[in-house]
């Protein structure tokens, strides 16, 4: 068990003891268990999952950030992060649609920005889907 804190520039998202953490590193997903070697890496857009002491699993949509693992525990500096129930699905769908249209036009506008925006929106939708699936499986 180790201390995990997940913070964004405008709030503290999660603070507590966890057993494991799986984060989307820029070079692929990576897991952190207790006693992991000190590490510093940027994080990509993707799913962040962690399991707390009671065995409860949390799933969240991460839109980039940093992960630092030290002897004191792990810190995730997230650009933005949401639990599935915080995600505004309609808004994510709209954002994805807008980004797709901009990408389809292919000219003028900032392609990398549109692509990043699309990735974030799709990630949020994927996380909502997954949360719903696991909720219905549990029921």
């Amino acid at each position, binding site marked *: 068990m180790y201390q995990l*804190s997940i*913070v*964004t*520039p*405008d*709030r*503290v998202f999660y603070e507590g003891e966890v057993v494991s953490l799986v984060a989307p*590193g*820029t*070079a692929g997903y990576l897991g952190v268990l207790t006693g992991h*070697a*000190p*590490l*510093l*890496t*940027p994080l990509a857009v993707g799913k962040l999952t962690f399991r707390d002491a009671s065995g409860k699993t949390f799933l969240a949509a991460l839109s980039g950030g*940093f992960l*630092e693992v*030290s002897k004191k525990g792990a*810190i995730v*500096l997230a*650009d933005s992060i949401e639990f599935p129930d915080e995600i505004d699905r309609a808004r994510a769908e709209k954002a994805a649609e807008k980004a797709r249209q901009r990408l389809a036009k292919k000219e003028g506008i900032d392609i990398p920005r549109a692509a990043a925006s699309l990735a974030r929106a799709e990630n949020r939708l994927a996380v909502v889907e997954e949360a719903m699936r696991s909720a219905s499986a549990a029921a």
Partner: protein
Amino acid sequence: MQSIRDIRRRIRSVSSTQQITKAMEMVAAAKLRRAQGRLAQARPYAEKAEEILKNLAGAAAEAAHPLLEVRPVKKSLLVAIASDRGLAGSYNANVIRRAEVFLRDYNPDNCGLVIVGKKAFDFYKKRKWPVRKVFADFGGNLHLAKAKTLATELMRAYENKEVDQIVLLYTRFLSTSTYRVHLAPFLPLVPEKKEEVSGDYIFEPSPAEIFEQLVPRFCLTRVVLALAESFASEHGSRMISMGAATRNAGEMIDHLTLVRNKARQAGITKEILEVVGGAEALQ
């Protein structure tokens, strides 16, 4: 002496002013609570980002980033953060006074301004200093997307070498009743190096690349934190000054009530004397 009617009118007017200041005090208190919450939420990120940056600066000594590049200062930029609304005691005046002191060492050719807050802009729009950009729609409420716009603007100006030094002027929130005007160098960023470097860190993919990604984020948090501190100070200052105004209005009402009663009594005494005098004349 004022007539009783005049005094009554004054009492009414003062007490309606008192109602307004009381309402403003309460609104400021509510906003302060929220701003303080925001500040408390923003601090951990900034602290942790700073810690990581320190670790990294020790490990990646050769890391070069355009935002860290120290250039001879030919052009400066002052970012003054004040409030959009007045009636906050001496809050805006304090910020502006400090800005003026800072600007004394510069001239309009080598120093520009970026202004947050309508009140500061009102002051500077008619002056000789070139105003690069104004952000007058925060309304004392920290909005992350807007803060990002501000931070990006500043970083771009520095990276494009339009300015060689950026200084942040904001107020640090110490408690509800105290804040301190604070002038902090913002760019170039000078990361403090940690003495002992924990050498066994794994940097994935490489220190330089992490640096590249971390520095802009760190700059953003500096801006966010400065805004959060300023807004909390603003609401605190407004709450205190409106509280004082409410108290003063109360004192004034007490005084006027006394004067009114005296005038009324004097009137009654005069009437009795007249009646008695009239009755005596008849005998």
